[in-house]
């Protein structure tokens, strides 16, 4: 009972601190639980769904297997393999989506390959409700001519139910359109950030198309193939690279045309966005936690100063140091729990909201339920950290003695500061603000560090935004292995001559080179392979580009994966040949989440005895003036739609990631605003309380509230300007390495942001202005301070 009375009184008298800390913990709880849910649920759910759909440890997508059953038996008989299964797939290199709502019924071209699978209720694929809010347990059977697509079609091609997916079997022949009946959850390629897309059709439609593809023979634009799912033995400790090597030796699987993804690669692709999102949220939660501790520290110190006399009196009445510390601790614990408890259910709602917003990008609906164990553990850690800090900070209560308290308590005694500047008539408010600031520096330290951290964090998002670029160009450049503005795959020489003349006229070609995307094996592990005729355009990070035929460059991630580096030898396998290559450098290319390498055109062609068709390469162009690229592409498509394929270095996931980054930035900015508001109101209210005597004096000699409020706000402006400067320095040194860590999950091994002066200083200016404005508003209570405060009756 002795604690309850004091606790109630303390909460009542320090209502603003109580509410402020409660708010901070509320935000931290939501952010923390959201990141835990996103991270853990996304990983668990994605893996669960891949397993449920029967995807093995590695999946090979292969066309035209001569004898699939015997291949499966061969693989299944390997000692490292548990089992191998197969699924029918139709592969299309081209497809279009027709929007029924569009009056012109204009088509969106598919950005990569399209796989068609059979759907039955037993196939295990989940169908979403039409509004994408959850799984529709009673999904209707597909009729012939209907198709289920992943929600990524909505973000990539603005597809709606009722729109059509069109494929062709033979050039210039009849095309086939399938009406989108709904959206299904695709845990394999559902992410909008993945090029490959999969759709589900009826068995009848699949068989019909299969027959037509076979009938078209060599002229077919599509292929009939299989997805081979390979499961390694659960007790086998064999590595996937060793398993692949064994497959190469014991079967002819690797010689067949196709590509493969391990389960972890699929998961990695699918969860790129969640991982980036979670990474930023983790950093954000850490920043918020430090900010909260700074504010709690300031609040405790100020409370002790404010209640110094009361505490002395309580000690005189028999309360011990422990009693008073317990009361203080209980007070903060109440605020912490008060923020945490409502934060728990709200975090589930936030995750649900994030899910809803991002489902068309990430392709799966991540469960919004909180992982109980991890959530409790994280909340326990938050409580332990804050309460440990409170206990540490309240130690000074022990130094309060009744006699000292009664003799005047902890009244401020100001000492001259070396930083003191003379007060002048002009800009009096500024000079007074500066004096007040240097006289009570300690009070503003927390606000200064809070600013630094917030500016640092804000800069991190701004730098990320700058790196991505306004239209995602920066991001796309990092995905590309080499710089280019436009890539064109020609079908004949004359067309190339004509098109290049047009490019020269409209954009002026500054450079051009040949490019091909293929796959190869490095030390028997399959990787995506870039081939270019002008290796000087590779984005080299370390070492040098590959100049000679037997040299290659690879990403840092691939190098780490293989345990090799610059100067090392590596076995490069293409087709059925294998040669020794030397690693000449590390380059940046985020394709395949950074698992790729690059060679010279000569190096690549050395694997083939016959001459490679020149038109199997893309021509990549760099233009002096790429501003008219959109019109240029339109003109090319109008004239040469049938004779060339365009690649403008745009990336299917760019729009999606830009949307998510925008949401992320708005969210972060909102939280930053709330934190500044809480910091200012907490720090400001304590300072104003402490200074009300001086404020009374100022008013008595003729100062008006406006001038005093301005001086008060200027103090915070100065503190936040100093903090911002620190934040800018911190961000200059730490943001790139930190972003590197976060972005490594999507294959960016080298994040380097270049900021304009505006972008560099913008976070500092915004944060400083917010501090100023909030401080001015918080100082509104100056109006209530009357000179009468000085009256002693």
């Amino acid at each position, binding site marked *: 009972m002795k604690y309850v009375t004091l606790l109630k009184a303390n909460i009542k008298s320090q209502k603003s601190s109580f509410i402020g800390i409660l708010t901070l913990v509320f935000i931290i709880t939501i952010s923390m639980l959201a990141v835990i849910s996103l991270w853990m649920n996304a990983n668990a759910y994605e893996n669960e769904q891949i397993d449920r759909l029967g995807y093995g440890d590695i999946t090979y997508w292969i066309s035209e297997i001569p004898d699939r059953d015997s291949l499966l038996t061969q693989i299944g008989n390997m000692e490292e393999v548990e089992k191998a299964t197969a699924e029918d797939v139709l592969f299309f290199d081209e497809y279009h989506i027709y929007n029924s709502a569009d009056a012109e019924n204009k088509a969106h071209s598919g950005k990569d390959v399209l796989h068609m699978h059979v759907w039955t209720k037993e196939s295990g694929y989940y169908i979403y409700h039409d509004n994408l809010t959850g799984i529709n347990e009673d999904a209707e059977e597909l009729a012939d001519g209907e198709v289920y697509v992943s929600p990524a079609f909505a973000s990539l091609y603005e597809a709606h139910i009722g729109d059509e997916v069109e494929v062709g079997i033979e050039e210039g022949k009849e095309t086939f359109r399938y009406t989108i009946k709904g959206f299904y959850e695709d845990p394999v390629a559902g992410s909008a950030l993945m090029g490959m897309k999969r759709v589900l059709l009826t068995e009848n439609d699949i068989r019909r198309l299969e027959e037509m593809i076979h009938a078209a023979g060599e002229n077919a634009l599509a292929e009939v193939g299989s997805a081979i799912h390979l499961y390694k033995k659960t007790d086998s400790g064999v590595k996937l690279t060793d398993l692949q090597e064994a497959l190469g030796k014991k079967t002819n699987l690797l010689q067949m045309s196709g590509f493969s993804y391990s389960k972890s690669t699929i998961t990695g692709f699918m969860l790129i966005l969640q991982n980036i999102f979670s990474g930023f949220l983790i950093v954000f939660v850490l920043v918020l936690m430090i900010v909260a501790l700074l504010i709690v520290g300031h609040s405790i110190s100020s409370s002790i100063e404010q209640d110094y006399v009361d505490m002395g009196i309580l000690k005189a009445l028999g309360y011990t140091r422990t009693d008073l510390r317990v009361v203080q601790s209980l007070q903060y614990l109440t605020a912490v729990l008060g923020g945490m408890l409502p934060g728990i259910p709200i975090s589930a709602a936030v995750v649900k909201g994030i899910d809803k917003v991002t489902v068309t990008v990430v392709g799966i609906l991540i469960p919004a339920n909180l992982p109980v164990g991890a959530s409790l553990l994280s909340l326990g850690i938050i409580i332990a950290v804050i309460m440990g800090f409170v206990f540490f900070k309240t130690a000074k209560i022990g130094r309060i003695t009744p006699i000292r308290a009664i003799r005047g308590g902890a009244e*401020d*005694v*100001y*000492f*001259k500061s070396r930083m003191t500047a003379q*007060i*002048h*008539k*002009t800009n*009096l408010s500024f000079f*007074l603000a500066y*004096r*007040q600031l240097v*006289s*009570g520096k300690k009070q503003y330290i927390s606000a200064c560090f809070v600013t630094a951290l917030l500016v640092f964090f804000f800069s991190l998002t701004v730098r990320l935004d700058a790196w991505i670029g306004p239209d995602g160009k920066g991001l796309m450049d990092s995905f590309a292995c080499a710089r280019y503005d436009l890539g064109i795959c020609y079908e004949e020489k004359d067309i190339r001559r004509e098109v290049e003349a047009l490019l020269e006229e409209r954009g002026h070609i500054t450079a051009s080179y040949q490019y091909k995307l293929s796959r190869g094996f490095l030390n028997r592990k399959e990787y995506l392979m870039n081939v270019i005729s002008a290796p000087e355009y590779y984005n080299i990070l370390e070492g040098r580009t590959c100049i000679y035929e037997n040299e290659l460059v690879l990403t840092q991630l691939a190098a780490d994966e293989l345990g090799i580096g610059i100067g090392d030898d590596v076995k490069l396998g293409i087709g059925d040949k294998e040669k020794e290559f030397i690693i000449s450098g590390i380059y940046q290319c985020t394709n395949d989440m950074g698992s790729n390498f690059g060679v010279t055109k000569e190096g690549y062609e050395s694997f083939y005895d016959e001459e490679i068709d020149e038109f199997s390469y893309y021509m990549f162009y760099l233009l002096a003036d790429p501003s008219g690229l959109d019109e240029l592409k339109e003109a090319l498509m109008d004239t040469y739609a049938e004779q060339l394929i365009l690649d403008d270095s745009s990336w299917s996931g760019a729009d999606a990631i830009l949307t998510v980054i925008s949401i992320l930035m708005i969210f972060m900015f909102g939280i930053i605003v709330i934190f500044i508001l809480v910091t200012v109101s907490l720090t400001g209210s304590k300072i104003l309380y402490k200074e009300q*005597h*001086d404020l*009374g*004096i*100022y*008013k*008595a*000699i*003729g*100062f*008006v*509230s406006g001038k005093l409020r301005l001086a008060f706000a200027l103090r915070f402006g100065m503190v936040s300007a100093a903090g911002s400067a620190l934040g800018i320095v911190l961000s200059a040194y730490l943001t790139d390495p930190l972003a590197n860590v976060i972005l490594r999950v999507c294959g960016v091994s080298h994040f380097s942001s270049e900021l304009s002066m505006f972008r560099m200083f913008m976070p500092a200016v915004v944060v400083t202005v917010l501090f100023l404005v909030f401080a001015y508003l918080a100082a509104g209570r100056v*109006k209530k301070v*009357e*000179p*009468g405060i*000085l*009256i*002693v*009756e």
Partner: protein
Amino acid sequence: MNRNKVIMKATGLCKSFANNGGQNHVLNMIDLEIYDGDFTVIMGSSGAGKSTLLYALSGMDKPTGGEVRYKDAVISSLKEKKMAPYRIREFGFVFQQAHLVSNLTLFENVAVTGYLDRQMREKEVRERAKMLLESMNVEDAADRLPSQVSGGEAQRAAIARAMMNTPGMIFADEPTGALNKKNTQEVLDILTRINENGQNILMVTHDIKAAIRATRLLYLEDGRVTGEMPMAPYRSEDAKSREKQVNAWLSSMEW
């Protein structure tokens, strides 16, 4: 008796405080005139409303009824912004505690009042602040903070501050209440001297040694002015006789 012109006038001045559901009338329909050149001292028993009257007259506190005119302008109903010029140029305050801004030096505490006055340039302000501190005999402590000087030095600096803008009236509320004997004497000498130089002073005190400095004494009881005694200008050699005179007057007021 010849009187100088009225510089301040209160009419029907009231101040009430809510008290346990009722009203406590601290000032009760006071009519009062303060004359130019006077050193007016308000005395009265504890709780009589002396300080309340002082602050109601100075505009530091709002009366609940009546009005206060200063140089013919009603000041009792002025809002903060309109009152500020009076506080800057017309009124100076000396409190029981020095009430100096804690993080400004004594010099700055004095000068900052001058900086508010648009009619003075910074150089003039600094020179006047220096001169005032010298005249108060605290020039050696000018660069010290209030926490680094004695109570007497702080109070003298407070008087210098009150005089900075050559105000029409200095309001002093028990200015020697927190001082020792020596400092009390020094502060009273200063107040007497500046009054001799023409400075109007309205002071509240319960100290007879302070009261004898007055040229006019007012007695306040139960929120009303119940007595008044004019006095000749103070001369130190008359101190004893003035003390007797004031004592006798106070006795007649049943003090």
